[in-house]
């Protein structure tokens, strides 16, 4: 069934010392157990489940805290940071590209530090599975000079969340916890702990030389930060784990970190080489444990480093005797799966490379759900503007690429700025093509607003369609600021899209039901005319339809849809509309409805050029 198991019923199974937790749930639980009083996040795979787990654990244990889905990662970071400037414990969670958004406060936070505990959870996505880059947040930590912990599995992620907060408090610095997809989205039997209530009232001690440090004071703060890092590099608690070999490979050792270490251990067992070669598992990739670093430099002639996704430990250890992703012994991109590690480890140990092939590529590409309100919008864009340029953004609607109505997907909010940039590029030569940006509601709040103000101010001329499904769909349906409810289910002050857009200076704004293709098409044409009129500028259309995966979407009217004999077999519906509810019936030489997939939205009725698709109520 598609019903997600509820944590409440999980508790009802009985008092067990362990629970089967997702890595993200283990992290969220740990934050509550460790007395975090403020947790903030913006959803993004693979980090999305952390904040929901904080909320669930607080509810279950009665812990008092403030948890929020912030408007973006920068805001989340700064909000949580202030809590840790009041002597309290705070955490912020995001995916790796979210840390790019929060990079500005992140870098300065290292210099200024905190008076409580501050854990920055940045989840990386080697592969990548659901991201626009394969970047390494540990490198960001190194660049910002923030200590970073690299858990190998959900159990360790839970433990490191607590140790990271303690480390942060001991030295007054932010600490990063860097899980990867295979930790975030692995489940494991994880022990539960008691909630520690720290009972620390907020106490912000004014210190302008620190909290408002001018450049003249920053140099001294930088020096102090380096002293702190030198002390952290000597903390025995974060020295690598050592699994000694039996001496048959003197001078060789393996250094591994994160889930790559876990997979390397499994592969060594498979190669019957477990316990034969010296194996160090790094827990803190920056700063590296200094006594350990000195020891391995003295002891080994060949050091193989296994880490994801970048060569962070390898680069710190330096070239020469050290090999890994930078030196070429390990592929420099992609995930370190067991299949990749097998020949790498066998090669390093001089063992015969076992036979084995890699998983095949291919399979079915993702597609907008049957009945998704976005599909009709993309179809209408293509039909209305066959020669249009379509910048888009990050979300489920990136799948509009399947309907040839998404030409760009860059980073959160970029579609709007790119639309303005395309306009200025073409307008320089005179005429400009129709430019239509699409962006989801949550993404618009996240990073679209400054882009829109900038475009309006600089008199760019393009259409912006906000695909408003009233939720953050791709990452698991977190509420947007338009919904009057917080992450904790508490009442909030809604910030509605139309007023916001008008306040950005937009002079053309229409709202339309996304299923209503005739009306949508009429508005698109009207918007294009406005855009090109003497007083024209950015035209904004809010196309609304609730996500079908939400309770509201589930309740919608369902039509009985069928393809009649008048179908001429032109395949227009299959190719231009790309809905899995429509299929080709080979025996009859025409399109047909797949009753298992079709949700009866009835939008395809408007798509058939022969009028062969019919919908009647009560399906």
């Amino acid at each position: 069934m598609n019903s997600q198991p509820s944590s409440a019923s999980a508790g009802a199974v009985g008092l067990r010392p362990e629970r089967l937790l997702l890595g993200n749930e283990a992290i969220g639980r740990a934050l509550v157990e460790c007395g975090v009083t403020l947790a903030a996040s913006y959803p993004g795979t693979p980090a999305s489940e952390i904040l929901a787990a904080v909320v669930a654990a607080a509810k279950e244990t009665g812990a008092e805290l403030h948890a929020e889905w912030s408007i973006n990662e920068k805001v989340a970071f700064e909000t949580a940071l202030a809590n840790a400037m009041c002597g309290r414990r705070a955490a912020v969670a995001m995916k790796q590209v979210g840390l790019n958004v929060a990079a500005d406060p992140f870098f300065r936070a290292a210099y200024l530090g905190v008076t409580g505990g501050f854990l920055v959870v940045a989840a990386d996505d080697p592969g990548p599975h659901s991201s626009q880059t394969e970047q390494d947040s540990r490198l960001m930590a190194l660049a910002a000079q923030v200590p970073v912990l690299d858990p190998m599995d959900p159990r360790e992620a839970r433990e490191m969340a607590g140790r990271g907060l303690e480390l942060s408090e001991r030295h007054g610095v932010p600490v990063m916890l860097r899980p990867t997809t295979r930790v975030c989205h692995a489940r494991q039997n994880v022990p539960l702990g008691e909630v520690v209530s720290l009972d620390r009232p907020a106490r912000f001690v004014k210190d302008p030389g620190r909290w408002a440090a001018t450049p003249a004071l920053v140099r001294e703060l930088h020096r102090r930060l380096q002293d702190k890092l030198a002390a952290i590099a000597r903390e025995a608690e974060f020295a690598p784990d050592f699994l000694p070999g039996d001496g048959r490979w003197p001078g060789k050792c393996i250094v591994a970190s994160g889930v790559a270490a876990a997979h390397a251990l499994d592969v060594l067992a498979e190669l019957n080489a477990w316990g034969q070669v010296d194996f160090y598992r790094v827990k803190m990739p920056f700063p590296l444990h200094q006594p350990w670093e000195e020891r391995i430099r003295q002891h080994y002639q060949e050091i193989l480093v296994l880490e994801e996704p970048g060569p962070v430990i390898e680069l710190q250890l330096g070239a020469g005797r050290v090999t890994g992703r930078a030196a070429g012994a390990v592929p420099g991109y992609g995930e370190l799966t067991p299949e990749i590690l097998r020949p790498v480890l066998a090669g390093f140990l001089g063992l015969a490379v076992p036979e084995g092939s890699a998983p095949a590529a291919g399979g079915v590409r993702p597609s907008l759900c049957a009945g998704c309100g976005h599909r009709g919008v993309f179809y209408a864009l293509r039909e209305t503007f066959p020669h249009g340029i379509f910048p888009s953004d990050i979300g489920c609607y990136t799948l509009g690429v399947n309907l040839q109505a998404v030409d760009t997907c860059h980073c959160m909010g970029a579609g709007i700025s790119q639309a303005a940039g395309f306009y200025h590029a073409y307008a320089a030569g005179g005429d400009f093509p129709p430019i239509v940006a699409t962006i989801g509601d949550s993404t618009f709040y996240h990073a679209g607003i400054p882009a829109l103000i900038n475009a309006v101010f600089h008199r760019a001329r393009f259409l912006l369609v906000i695909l408003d499904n009233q939720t953050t769909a791709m990452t698991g349906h977190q509420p947007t600021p338009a919904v009057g409810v917080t992450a904790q289910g508490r009442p909030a002050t809604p910030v509605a899209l139309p007023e916001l857009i008008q306040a950005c200076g937009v002079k053309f704004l229409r709202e339309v039901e996304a299923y209503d293709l005739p009306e949508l098409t009429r508005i698109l044409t009207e918007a294009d005319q406005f855009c090109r009129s003497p007083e024209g500028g950015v035209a904004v259309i809010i196309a609304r339809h609730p996500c079908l995966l939400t309770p509201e979407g589930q309740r919608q009217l369902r039509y009985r849809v069928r393809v009649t004999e008048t179908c001429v077999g032109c395949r227009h519906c299959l190719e231009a509309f790309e809905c899995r509810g429509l299929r080709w019936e080979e025996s009859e030489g025409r399109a047909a409805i797949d009753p298992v997939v079709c949700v009866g939205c009835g939008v395809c009725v408007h798509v058939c050029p022969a009028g062969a698709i019919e919908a009647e109520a009560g399906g």
Partner: protein
Amino acid sequence: MRQQIIVSGLGGQGAVTLTRWLGEAALALGWPVLTSETHGMAQRGGTVISMVKVGGYHGPLIPWGAADVGLFLARDNLRVHGGYVRPGGVAVVNTVEPGPYQGIDALGLALAQGLKPVAANLVLLGYAAGRRVLFCAAEVLEGVIRSMTPPRFREDSLRAFGAGLAAAREAGG
């Protein structure tokens, strides 16, 4: 006890839930367990794979050619994920087509019970449990589903699981 299981399907077919129940069954039996799931964009109808490793493993991924059991919610996925199942391993497949696997019309049985198409996942699980290819007895899984499914879906889930179990009995499992 050590067993490696892959669950292969399309986003929305309930592979994550099926994986969760297998993990919970291992936990109920007191065995260490690691699972791996697909989240994010691929969940929108794309090919997905989940993994379950019961026993003393460190990493959550099953190497190609090492799974003891493959549960396939979509037969076409055999093309991309069939090779995860080791020689001598068992593939249990939701299909009406005969082939070199244990086939079961899980979708047909779910619809015949008046259940939603997604319930095919639990029919397939019931069938695999009934054919005794899993690390745990059917009763353990049934107990997990009974105690952990939210009340409004509980009866339908148990009916789907029971239909798979009954089909296995008929097939001589």
